[in-house]
């Protein structure tokens, strides 16, 4: 059973539209803090590979697309976050462990 998809993405400073106008300038330091918080570390596993990446706030389908050639992740590999099966819309949280499950070796 796939984990409940998180409906709302965490608000990322990078996605916020600047309000514009000299008298209404965006608070840069506050935005940076939000970015740092949004892009927290997620451990990504596939087979013997393990990488810690600053990708919290992104959804699983985006991460899969970005890493499929780097880690050779097949399209049909199960995605699990902290052991729970998730679908591609799941938004990664800081300290999550995302595993694309590698199939068992067949031969002997």
């Amino acid at each position, binding site marked *: 059973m796939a984990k409940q998809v998180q409906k709302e993405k965490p608000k990322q400073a990078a996605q916020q539209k600047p309000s514009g106008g000299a008298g209404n300038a965006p608070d840069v330091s506050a935005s940076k803090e939000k970015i740092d918080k949004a892009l927290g570390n997620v451990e990504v*596993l596939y087979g013997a590979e*393990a990488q810690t990446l600053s990708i919290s706030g992104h959804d699983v389908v985006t991460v899969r697309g970005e890493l499929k050639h780097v880690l050779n992740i097949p399209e049909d590999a199960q995605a699990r976050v902290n052991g729970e099966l998730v679908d591609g819309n799941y938004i990664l949280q800081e300290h999550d462990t995302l595993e694309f499950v*590698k199939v*068992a*070796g*067949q031969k002997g």
Partner: protein
Amino acid sequence: MKIRVIGCGGIAGRLLDTLCRFLNYHPELQDTEISLIDGDTYEEKNRDRQAFDELGNKAEVTAKVLEKEFPSIFFRSHPTYIDQDNIIMLLREGDLIFSCVDNHATRKLVSDHCEELDNVVVISGGNDYIDGNVQVHIRKDGENLTLPIANEYHPEIEEPEDESPADIEEREGGCDVEVVSEPQLLIANNYIAAGMLNAFYAYLEGEIEYDEAYLDVLANKSNTRKRS
């Protein structure tokens, strides 16, 4: 200790020499019995990955070689593929099983049977060309301490698409069937065998803390998973 080794191909060939040497000279493990189970026969084409001094059934030929070298261990050989009918006799309460088979259908059969036992340890290895995995199922007093070999993380084992050699043999009317298989790398067999032995030693020491390990030859990396 009663050890069963299912499949005497590339992985088992790398595993057995080290396992038997370790047990034969271990001061507390010299009464070990090792049963080898395989219905396949050694052929000349196997020499690129397997060592044998005569042609014949793999379980019988291997047991004959090992019993000369490791006299403290009692060897049995079962020249048969494991199947629904004989598994009750071959895998029993209290066994420690090394599954070195080359198909998921047999892994599923072994896994399901072991879930019906109260106390059993299964260390299962499998490889593709340059990588593979090792799974450890520890069942104690009727409870799974780690995940069974067929589990939700591995639907390819829970619902195997391949056939066991016993099924193929039955379908072909008991004839010895030539199975065309993917090429394998001896070095990958060796790496998986080493991973299985690592799991065995960790189990003996009471320090096994994972359900599964992945191993990759090219990257020279391994990584464990705690799933249960």
